[in-house]
């Protein structure tokens, strides 16, 4: 029903657009011939989370827009993609039910664009058992990266935090970083732990302050970070909580006493406005994908696809880029497959695992999958600074280092990507 509704809206939207002479400007996606695809649809699934702690739906929204564009441009081997999306509402039971519906009942050939806090931890065993790959876009917990059947285009809190820490050490002269994260073992402890390891590997000091997600009081967490003797504060929290912490810091007027860095959640268009003038020019944020106002061909294409096929109010943020990219890589992979094999899940899974060296200007490094227990192809990022009502790039693509990435780099050498 929801699908029908969305479909109806999309048709309606398309009709209005074509009426306003925008039809010829519509972007093309995939290798199709330009006439709308017909024939048996290729079933693809996606799970996102949208409930109280945050809305990750922009990843699947973007993947949906891309697939709609593919279908309008001629499909994959002439066939349309039927993209089915479910919301897990941050509830592990719902996540399991959604995956069961898509993987078992609907028989999708792959999952694309998944973005959630809980879905991956719950469903990784199911994906492995059913031999299906998830080309995710919004991984936020350790389980998501440490699974053989999930690979994501985004970086997650660990890589992004370490990336921010590297920038602070190399360019801001940080000697002692306090990482303020969520008190959830597979999120805060995991990612802030890696920051501490990175600092230790450089002979510098690092510490973690962990906040309970529902706690009303962020002030004492901030005070704890101050008491650690740090010279740099790394805010590694969901945007809402991060803004509360920075509000507390503003209250203490300690902006100039410390250097302030953050992982990607604060790289969002509405953040500079919510932070206000006080943080203008003082807040350095790591961007997992390249900046969303970039001029690379994929970035421009992403925006035009969103304008043509997504709702105007769907956010154009990092997760949206990541969702677009997963869908694009998936399409690219299917187009290279034998048309007779694309309905066979095992063949699609094997083809996804064989992906090596896909490139895009939306990510700094190559995208690859491989038959390994840990996937984190994207571990190079960009650093931006809050500037006026937006952001300003302060460091172009740079690769992260540290103990956590050593095995990944080994694997990349094996794939011949280095």
């Amino acid at each position, binding site marked *: *029903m*929801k*699908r029908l*509704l*969305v479909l109806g809206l999309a048709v309606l939207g398309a009709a209005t657009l074509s009426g306003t002479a925008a039809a010829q400007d519509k972007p093309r996606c995939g290798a199709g011939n330009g006439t709308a695809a017909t024939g048996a649809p290729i079933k693809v699934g996606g799970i996102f989370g949208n*409930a109280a702690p945050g809305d990750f739906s922009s990843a699947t929204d973007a993947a949906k827009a891309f697939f709609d564009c593919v279908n309008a441009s001629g499909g994959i081997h002439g066939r349309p993609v039927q993209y089915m999306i*479910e*919301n897990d*509402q*941050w*509830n*592990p*039971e*719902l996540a*399991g*039910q*959604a995956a*069961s*519906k898509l993987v*078992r*009942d609907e028989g999708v050939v792959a999952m694309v664009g998944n973005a959630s806090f*809980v879905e991956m*931890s*719950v469903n*990784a*065993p199911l994906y492995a058992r059913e031999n299906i790959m998830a080309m995710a876009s919004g991984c936020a917990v*350790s*389980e998501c990266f*440490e*699974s053989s059947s999930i690979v994501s285009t985004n970086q997650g809190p660990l890589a992004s935090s370490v990336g921010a820490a590297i920038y602070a050490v190399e360019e801001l002269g940080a000697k002692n970083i306090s990482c303020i994260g969520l*008190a*959830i*073992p*597979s999120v805060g*402890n*995991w990612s802030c732990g890696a920051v501490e390891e990175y600092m230790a590997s450089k002979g510098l000091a690092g510490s973690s302050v962990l906040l*309970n*997600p*529902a706690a009303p009081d962020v002030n004492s967490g901030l005070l704890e970070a101050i008491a650690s003797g740090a010279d740099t504060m790394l805010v590694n929290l969901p945007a809402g909580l991060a803004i509360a912490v920075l509000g507390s810091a503003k209250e203490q007027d300690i902006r100039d006493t410390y250097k302030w860095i953050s992982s990607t959640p604060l790289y969002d268009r509405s953040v500079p406005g919510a932070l206000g003038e006080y943080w203008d020019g003082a807040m350095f944020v790591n961007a997992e994908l390249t900046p969303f106002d970039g001029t690379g061909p994929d970035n421009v294409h992403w925006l035009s696809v969103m304008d043509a096929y997504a709702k105007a109010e769907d956010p154009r943020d990092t997760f949206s880029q990541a969702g677009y990219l997963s869908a694009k890589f998936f399409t690219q992979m299917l187009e290279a497959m034998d048309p007779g094999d694309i309905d066979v899940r095992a063949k699609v899974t094997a083809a996804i695992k064989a992906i090596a060296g896909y490139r895009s200007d939306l990510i700094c490094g190559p995208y690859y999958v491989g038959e390994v227990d840990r996937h984190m192809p994207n571990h190079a990022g960009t650093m931006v600074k809050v500037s006026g009502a937006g952001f300003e790039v302060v460091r172009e693509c740079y690769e992260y280092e540290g103990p956590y990435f050593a095995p990944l780099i080994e694997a990349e050498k094996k794939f011949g990507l280095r």
Partner: protein
Amino acid sequence: MAYSTSGIAGLAFAALTAVFLPVLVGSQWVLIFTSTACFALAAAGIGLMYARLNMVSLTQVGLMGVGGWVTLRMNHGLGLPFEFNLLAAGVVTAAFGMLLALPALRMRGLYLALITLMSAGGIEIVLSTFRFPNGGEGFWGVMPSVAAPFRRPVLAIEDGAYLRYAIVVSTLGMLLIELHRRGAPGRAWAMIRRSEAAAMASGVNVTLYKAWAFALSGLLAGLAGGLLAGSIGLLDAATFRAPESIMLFALAVVGGAGSWPGAVIAAILYRVLPALFNDWGLNPDLALVIFGAALLHAIMTAPEGIAGQIRAALPRWAK
């Protein structure tokens, strides 16, 4: 023991659902109904305390979390079969419920409800800080990678069989309540509910039987939490937050406390209705509005909840 129409209907309902549900519905709905069976068992515990003793327990879902934690801890720590883990979850949670009963014994009404609410708040913080064991080292047993495998009961490896298993366990739990209701505890509860002074004067051990109700309700919550852990293979703290306990209590009142259809209706509202909303593309927030309105309606005009209204509408022979 005499057989009541309601009891026979309950057994028939359980048998029918156990036989046909796994065959008739898709694998998504098998999981939804498994959750429903778990929460029906927990809601039956709430109904027991509310209908028999007028005690409001706002921590039942938190207690389910305790049961789930024990099940996962046992599963990843020892090589015992599922049944032992589930039983341990029930026993530990019952003991936990008793512990909660100690300060609560002298309270009633609002203050009792409040102390259970405080307990729900405390459990929420502990679970969200330490999380559920997933096969890691140490007491808390949490590791950052994908959870170690969960051993389901030998008889119920597949989701469909597990749904049957959950229905059977829930039915046994409800039969246990019925057994209590018809035995000495049931008579004691009835007297305590009417007047503690009178009950005490006629030689009823008020302390014992009140603590007993807490323990029984805790046992059911523990079993429900263990079953839920087995359904998904892992648990997340978000499932057991204090607002969820409040919600399940509200729905137990809406469904109708103190009867098996009431508990089943509560669980259906709690798990099936949001799933239907999801399928129909309706905003899940609207379910909250419906729950709220239904709660007000139930409290003002339908003291026995939806189950009571259905019963009233049935012909006389079916009552």
